[in-house]
């Protein structure tokens, strides 16, 4: 059977070149970068080299990079650490309503710590309005965090404009760029932000590592307490192989970004263009043009996401969904809800996140396999019968 992986939002594959670069550090070069001998020297050198490559990906300086254990940890460090470092100046922070849980739930923890959190709404495309952002800022606002792009619906935010507003008011600005860094051009200077989270399992690097870029001079309270690693800002033995892998993945992403984007948007546009002509009542979610090159997200009306996922999986097709049933918490995606989609439509969420390995053939395969699956589930769906009856009644 054909196997088509279209769940790159969950994690990408690891490129063979990346693994190749990691292997020595999983074998003989196993030293700890803190050690003062040959084994330590080799590990330290690898770390420095990776740091430079990772910094180059986002137009930053190597010493501004703090390696973490994941994108989630980078977001925890940013939100908790930047807010705590400023709590004497104020205890108000601003985030968007469609942040990833690693920002959203971290903000909830800040609420327990006595902070007040404003959640900025988004429009039907998932866009934050910079004017709304400006209005939300108060004298006691110390931190604003708006994600660069949302991976569920692909919408890319006007970060530069939002950052402008925030800066004028003196709060620090963090952006969660897990969905963008390594995928589309990200330059911290152009964005005008103070802190930025990213992770290589979104750009063909390994799991178990992420990074927070922190502009020189921006103070943060460390999140992980312990040893002196990462300039005292993130304790714990460095995950050398994974960091090396992040370095290589960053290097490749920098080199190949243009061609990757061209390839991805071509097959994405094919999917976005043709799917609605094969399946009635399929709604594209997210912004029609300001969106991630690999993201094709839909809501398929009258049926539910998990059942589509499972039937697609039986045809070798791997995708994801923001439906309530696919979430452990059994709540429909807060992103789709914040964009104003009615819950019963959000249940039909189906997210194709395309990757480098995908071809036009893969898209054709999906376009052939999905319609009968949708038909079959609609035949089973009481909502669809009601809709059909309503139409008959109406006509």
């Amino acid at each position, binding site marked *: 059977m054909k196997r088509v992986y279209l769940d790159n939002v969950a994690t990408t594959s690891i490129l063979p070149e990346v693994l190749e670069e990691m292997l020595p550090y999983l074998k003989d070069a196993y030293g700890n970068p803190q050690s003062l001998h040959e084994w330590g020297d080799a590990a330290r050198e690898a770390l420095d080299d990776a740091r430079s490559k990772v910094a180059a990906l986002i137009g930053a300086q190597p010493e501004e990079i703090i390696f973490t254990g994941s994108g989630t940890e980078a977001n925890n460090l940013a939100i908790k650490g930047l807010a705590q470092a400023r709590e004497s100046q104020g205890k108000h922070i601003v985030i968007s309503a469609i942040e990833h849980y690693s920002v959203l739930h971290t903000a909830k923890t800040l609420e327990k710590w006595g902070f007040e959190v404003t959640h900025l709404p988004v429009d039907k495309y998932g866009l934050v309005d910079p004017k709304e952002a400006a209005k939300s800022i108060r004298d006691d606002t110390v931190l604003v965090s708006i994600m660069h792009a949302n991976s569920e619906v692909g919408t890319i935010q006007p970060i530069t404009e939002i950052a402008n507003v925030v800066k004028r008011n003196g709060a620090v600005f963090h952006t969660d760029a897990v969905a963008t860094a390594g995928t589309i051009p990200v330059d911290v200077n152009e964005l005008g932000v103070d802190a930025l989270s990213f992770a290589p399992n979104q750009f063909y690097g390994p799991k178990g590592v992420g990074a927070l870029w922190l502009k020189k001079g921006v103070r943060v309270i460390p999140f992980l307490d312990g040893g002196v690693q990462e300039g005292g800002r993130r304790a714990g033995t460095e995950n050398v192989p994974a960091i090396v892998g992040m370095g290589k993945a960053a290097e490749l992403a920098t080199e190949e970004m243009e061609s990757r984007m061209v390839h991805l948007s071509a097959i994405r546009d094919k999917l976005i263009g043709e799917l609605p002509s094969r399946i009635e009542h399929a709604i594209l979610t997210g912004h029609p043009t300001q969106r991630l090159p690999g993201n094709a997200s839909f809501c398929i009306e*009258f*049926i*539910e996401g*998990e*059942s589509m996922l*499972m*039937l697609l999986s*039986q045809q070798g097709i791997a995708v994801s969904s923001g*439906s*309530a*049933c*696919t979430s*452990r918490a*059994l709540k*429909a995606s807060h992103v789709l809800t914040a964009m104003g989609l009615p*819950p*019963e439509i959000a*249940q039909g969420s189906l997210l194709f996140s395309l990757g480098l390995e995908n071809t036009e053939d893969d898209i054709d395969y999906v376009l052939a396999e999905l319609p009968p699956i949708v038909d079959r589930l609609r*035949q*089973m*769906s*009481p*909502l669809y*019968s009601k809709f059909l009856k309503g139409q008959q009644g109406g006509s």
Partner: protein
Amino acid sequence: MPIYSDTVMDHFTNPRNVGEIEDADGIGEEGNPVCGDMMTFYIKVDNNHLSDVKFKTFGCGAAIAVSSIVSEMAMGKTIEEARKITPALVAKELEGLPKNKFHCSNLGAQALNKAIDDYLKKQGK
């Protein structure tokens, strides 16, 4: 490891008794699409026995499998026997359900019960 048992997968992939009964004796609807799952059960009753059971379901794999197995379990039973199809029994017949899917087995039993209630009401009982 798949999150579902083989029995769940079988009933999800080949659900029994999908459909509506035009002249049903009882109809029961449970759940709603906001929560993610919704089931409608249709029954025909003949001499106090469920002579036909059909369903339509909007929902996850578990919801579909639950509907299917409930329809199978109920088919041919007396009303009193059908009343005894509990969520626990449904989950057991399916060889287990993931913890966060237990509510689906509730829905199935409830929708069937509502169909029976509907039948009894129509009978004026």
